[in-house]
């Protein structure tokens, strides 16, 4: 049995489904260890955390905090106080937009955002400018769909620029942006940086300390963990300045009827009972990735990426977006004279699971002058056999649609 087959066997989805799952940028499959962790929690350990002093309560609090510790190590944060559990990337970005930046941005301040961000990294900021009077300044991108570093460097020198909002890996092109360079430039100009890391965490080595970003947001479900889990990393000194954005049990030092005081980060941001099972599952997902090692993941993914690139080249009339700089196996494309919706619907009919449409990136679609495209996104458990089968199906579907035009 090959190593890849062994790894794939750890994911029960593939035993229960015959289809080809090429929709990993939307969400990844979950390994047995994650699923079992969640089941075991509910079967034998279920109780609340950070409250009860009974044995199970204390045990769960320890396990919950172990997950936080594991995530801290996984992304190279300095302290587990910098790790706030959220429901996902969207939640994380919304929290900092509506708390820290709502308080610090003023009328006339500028937020730099590119047209290649996911909607989740545009809409919270759009809402924020309505509330603060700050403005969005669009940052230029290059023809290869990477950030235009030279131009951004110039913009960062404007005194009105206070925040740079970027992504680490694109959910459309699979390109890893050189965010270190941008963060360094932004830091020199005292501009805060928020990174959407949703597509990076399952594929790239993350070290927030080395990167130097102020905030880094990601989701558990895109890294083989449970849905409804996510992380907001924030530098300790910044999180300590943020007032809680929601209020309830588990976050207080002292409550009076007129006035209350809060615990320190991260607890002041985690009011109410948390997604305990989810957080424990996420801890296992991190452990799973670390046991495999990002190096091995990268090696396998580079092989399948090369294989897919070669195969896609054989499709007449294909246009792949951001093809030159791809670093992770996400492929977004259109076929000349065929609608992406028709293609995806028929691929689905043939049990090939892909995604089509604007991919939550309408500004990028406008930039590319298209309504949408087909996205095929792979992970390390996808095999060359699946790629071959996908290509055959794609050719069959294209020929069907051409014959029925």
């Amino acid at each position, binding site marked *: 049995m090959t190593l890849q087959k062994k790894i794939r066997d750890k994911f029960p989805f593939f035993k229960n489904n015959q289809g080809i799952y090429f929709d990993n940028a939307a969400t990844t499959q979950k390994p047995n260890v994650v699923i079992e962790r969640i089941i075991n929690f509910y079967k034998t350990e279920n109780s609340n955390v950070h409250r009860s002093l009974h044995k199970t309560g204390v045990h769960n609090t320890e396990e919950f905090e172990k997950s936080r510790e594991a995530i801290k190590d996984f992304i190279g944060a300095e302290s587990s106080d910098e790790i706030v559990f959220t429901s996902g990337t969207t939640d994380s970005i919304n929290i900092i937009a509506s708390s820290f930046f709502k308080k610090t941005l003023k009328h006339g301040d500028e937020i730099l955002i590119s047209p290649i961000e996911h909607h989740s990294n545009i809409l919270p900021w759009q809402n924020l400018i309505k509330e603060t009077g700050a403005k969005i300044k669009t940052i230029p991108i290059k023809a290869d769909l990477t950030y235009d570093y030279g131009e951004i460097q110039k913009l960062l020198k404007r005194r009105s620029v206070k925040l740079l909002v970027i992504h680490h890996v694109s959910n459309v092109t699979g390109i890893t942006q050189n965010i270190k360079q941008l963060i360094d430039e932004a830091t020199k100009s005292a501009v805060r940086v928020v990174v959407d890391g949703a597509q990076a965490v399952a594929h790239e080595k993350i070290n927030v300390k080395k990167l130097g970003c102020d905030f880094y947001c990601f989701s558990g479900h895109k890294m083989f963990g449970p849905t409804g889990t996510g992380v907001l990393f924030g530098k300790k000194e910044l999180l300590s300045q943020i007032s809680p954005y929601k209020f309830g049990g588990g976050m207080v030092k002292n409550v009076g009827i007129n006035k209350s005081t809060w615990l320190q980060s991260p607890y002041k941001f985690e009011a109410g009972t948390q997604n305990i099972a989810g957080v424990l599952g996420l801890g296992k997902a991190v452990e799973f990735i670390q046991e495999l090692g990002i190096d091995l993941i990268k090696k396998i993914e580079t092989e399948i990426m090369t294989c897919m690139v070669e195969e896609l080249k054989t499709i007449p009339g294909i246009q792949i977006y951001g093809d030159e700089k791809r670093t992770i196996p996400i492929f977004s494309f259109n076929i000349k004279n065929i*609608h992406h*919706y*028709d293609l995806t*619907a*028929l691929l*689905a009919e043939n049990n090939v699971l892909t995604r089509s*449409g604007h991919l939550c990136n309408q500004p990028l679609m406008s930039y590319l002058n298209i*309504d949408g495209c087909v996205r095929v996104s792979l992970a390390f458990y996808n095999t060359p056999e699946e790629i071959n089968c996908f290509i055959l199906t794609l050719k069959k579907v294209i020929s069907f649609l051409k014959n*029925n*035009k």
Partner: protein
Amino acid sequence: MTSTEEIILDFKTLPTWEEKYEYIIELGKNSQFINPKLTDEKYLLEGCQSKVWIKCKVRKDEVIFIGNSDALITRGLVALIIKLYSKNCKNDWEKMFVGREKERGNHHVLKEIGIIKHLSMTRAQGLSLMEEKIKNYAFDWIQNSSY
């Protein structure tokens, strides 16, 4: 036989996906309810994965719908949905709305003919939007005597 029964019967005789989708695509090509030139922004339904245009008008005691889409399969689905609703005269519409207000389509027919099972909610949402527009128009028409 009603249009719905006709379509279900037609579909039941088609065993493969190729034949089912050929049928749907053909509907879009040959339907009297489709006008490929209908691309005016004001008829565009927002929120569908592919572009869908629906134009509604009243002729005598009848409400007429004409549609179009830039995707082959969707164009067929537009033709199908319009076909399902186009034989409704004022009386039929009134009967349809009795006690049900302007409820959204439940895709009963589309489910039965086995198309919708592979369509994601986003796309199903597109179908709902088409039905909603048609029903809203018809509802306003029977409510409002100025039509």
